[in-house]
């Protein structure tokens, strides 16, 4: 019998940490004089990746259930806009709730179309992305909506607890809740079983439609939280916020070792995957490369890393 090479599997499971350590070391040596290792820069990396981290946590659930969500960037943008408008016209609480309502509405629609109507999530969310971004542009007429509420901006953006940036509290909270849910709760098991083998999950009495609905809902709600973080950090609501983030989030999830085909997921891996994306961005900027070259190198690193991390 041909037994799979056990060491190979271990390497794959821990690959993200090796890649992270390797690239970190590489930049640390190469960019030492550019201040890469200064605590300010390191905190910056964490801060810049906060929104991606939050979205990637939601995306981990979606991909673990063998679905995909391409609408999260659009949801984040629409949320920032709706939140900014309602904050301006009605007040703080209304703004936050209005933003979250976007996540609930879009998530429910995605979930219903995927689980009840049976349209592949790839198509549903591809369409929904356009709807969300278009809607955000329509109601603001393409203008950014400034947010002048200090409480909001502190809460979702620039706030600090001592020296510790508030944005990091959001991303750490997302990671911890995501980790507990995926590894310690029945829901996490249901998601993984559904993604691993939907037939077998049904035979186990798992309501896989319900699971699919919930992961789509979670992803959207989490994306709307990311939208609030965009609004707070940039002190504006704008339809463009979050554009393209779905791809960064998916890259983070896959880099982290979650199988693109469902059935296995790791939140801690996703966290490091998001940090790795942020690390690469930061390093390339510090190295003084023009945007065009950054894009090329970032794309190649991601393809290479995913090729290594992918399950056969």
């Amino acid at each position: 019998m041909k037994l799979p090479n056990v060491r190979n599997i271990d390497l794959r499971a821990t690959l993200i940490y090796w890649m992270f350590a390797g690239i970190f070391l590489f930049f640390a040596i190469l960019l030492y004089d550019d201040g890469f290792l200064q605590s300010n820069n390191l905190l910056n990396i964490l801060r810049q990746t906060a929104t991606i981290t939050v979205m990637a946590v939601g995306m981990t659930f979606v991909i673990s259930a063998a679905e995909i969500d391409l609408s999260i960037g659009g949801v984040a943008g629409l949320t920032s806009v709706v939140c900014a408008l309602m904050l301006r016209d009605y007040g703080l609480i209304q703004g936050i709730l209005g933003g979250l309502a976007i996540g609930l509405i879009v998530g429910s629609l995605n979930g219903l179309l995927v689980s009840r109507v049976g349209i592949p999530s790839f198509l549903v969310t591809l369409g929904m992305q356009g709807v969300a971004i278009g809607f955000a542009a329509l109601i603001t007429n393409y203008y950014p909506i400034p947010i002048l509420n200090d409480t909001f901006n502190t809460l979702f953006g620039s706030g600090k607890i001592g020296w510790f940036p508030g944005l990091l509290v959001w991303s750490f909270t997302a990671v911890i809740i995501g980790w507990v849910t995926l590894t310690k709760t029945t829901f996490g098991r249901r998601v993984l079983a559904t993604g691993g083998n939907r037939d077998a999950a049904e035979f186990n009495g798992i309501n896989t439609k319900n699971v699919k609905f919930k992961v789509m809902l979670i992803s959207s709600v989490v994306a709307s939280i990311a939208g609030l973080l965009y609004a707070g950090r940039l002190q504006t609501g704008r339809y463009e916020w979050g554009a393209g983030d779905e791809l960064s989030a998916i890259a983070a999830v896959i880099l982290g070792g979650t199988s693109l085909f469902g059935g296995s997921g790791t939140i801690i891996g996703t966290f490091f995957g998001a940090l790795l994306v942020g690390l690469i961005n930061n390093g390339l900027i510090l190295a003084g490369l023009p945007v065009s070259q950054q894009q090329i190198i970032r794309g190649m690193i991601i393809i290479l890393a995913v090729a290594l991390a992918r399950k056969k």
Partner: protein
Amino acid sequence: MSSNFNVVEMLDISKSFFGVKVLDEVCFSVSSGEIHALAGENGAGKSTLMKILQGVYSMDSGEIRIAGKKVSIDTFQDARKHGIGMVFQEFSLVPELSVAQNIFLDREHKNRFGFFDEKVTISKSRMVMEELGLAIDVTAKVSTLGRAYQQLTEIAKAIAGDAKILILDEPTASLAKEEVDALFKVLKQLTLRGVSIVYISHRMDEIYQICDRITILRDGKKIAVSPLAEITPQEIIAHITGRKDVQMLSHEGKSVERSVVPIFEGIGICVGERVNNVSFKLYPGEILGLAGLMGSGRTELVRAIFGMDKKDEGIVSIEGKEVSIKSPRDAMSHGIAFIPEDRRRQGLVMEHSVKQNILSANLSSLSHLSFLNYTKINGVVQDAIINFEVRPAEANREVRLFSGGNQQKVVISKWMATNPKIVLMDEPTVGVDIGTKVEIMKLVRSIAAEGKSVILVSSELPELLGVCDRILVIRKGEIAEELDRREIRDEDHLQMIVQGIRI
């Protein structure tokens, strides 16, 4: 009808998997224009032999001759080159392409610009169909055809590829009577053109209807080869079954109390066209066997009981109370467990560990306020591994790394952890070695000894005879016979009943 030269000769073929001999110097030959039946129980070596002929497996020793010349067949392409065509059970057609496009898939006609020449493809496909005497619209999409026509298209495809030898594996399993007749007409037509056919089937009536000769395999050895005119069904069945593992066969002769309220009762269950007005009762501690040929509706019946498929009609009662079971969740809440036919596709998440698989069916009992209780989980999993002798005893090992038999033990242990009252089992010993088979049958007995009831679907008659208290014979979706175990003399007797042969 057969002229006398051998198109295919397989001489002294031996093959072992992991040190287990599955073919032991088997000789098999098919002559020109002959329909040759290949019979034997599951695991007798039929499909291994045919896979060697198709280049899927390589043989350890032996020789293959095609039209008298020694050949080596290492790949599927080699087999095709030598004119060997396989009609797949799960069809190899592309549903979204037309019949004509499928027939010439991979051998497309091109015009002088290098584009597909649809006209030539269609006219040549029509010619093939005409030759076969088939009225199939070659421009229709394959997905719009019924299963029988898809199968005929598959045959047309093989013929268009110049197949001289066709292998058909249980081709009638999912066909209706008229469709079978149409298929047989085509097969006869083909033999007139000199095509030889290897016909694998469990159905005795069909074998007699269409085949010229039969080769019987048992435990990897060739037991007999004979023209069908010179052999009786009784003789064939005796060759197929042989003398069995005595321990497994011996029935304990326990008595089931049938004056109490049945634990399960189904009245008039109908599922599509496959299950028609089935009524039966199941008593506490009873093992009820469902016997029948492939495609007789056994699987559909148990799937409907478990709520996987929708029942069109019928009433189900548990412990005398009528219940509504619309999903596996409903079934589980009424204490029903289901060990499905295909453990890889339906029973397990192959990439998950033993622990995770056992957990998946027991989420509510192993958690508190939807948080998993790992102390409890580890205990249950450890118990399961010990009680069901899962080897290696590693809870965190992915199940795909276990042998078939141990995977099946994981499925069973997973369901037994739900503490069911009724256990449905669909072919629980497919693809496991004989030692594990015996273990699984012992498990079935011990499950019943705890007072649980079992419905066992199996094509392996010795299994049914070894453990069942009562056997329902299903034929064409209906209960054809209901037999107390004591009324059945031996395997041959049961085989006759399943085949519908009157004695």
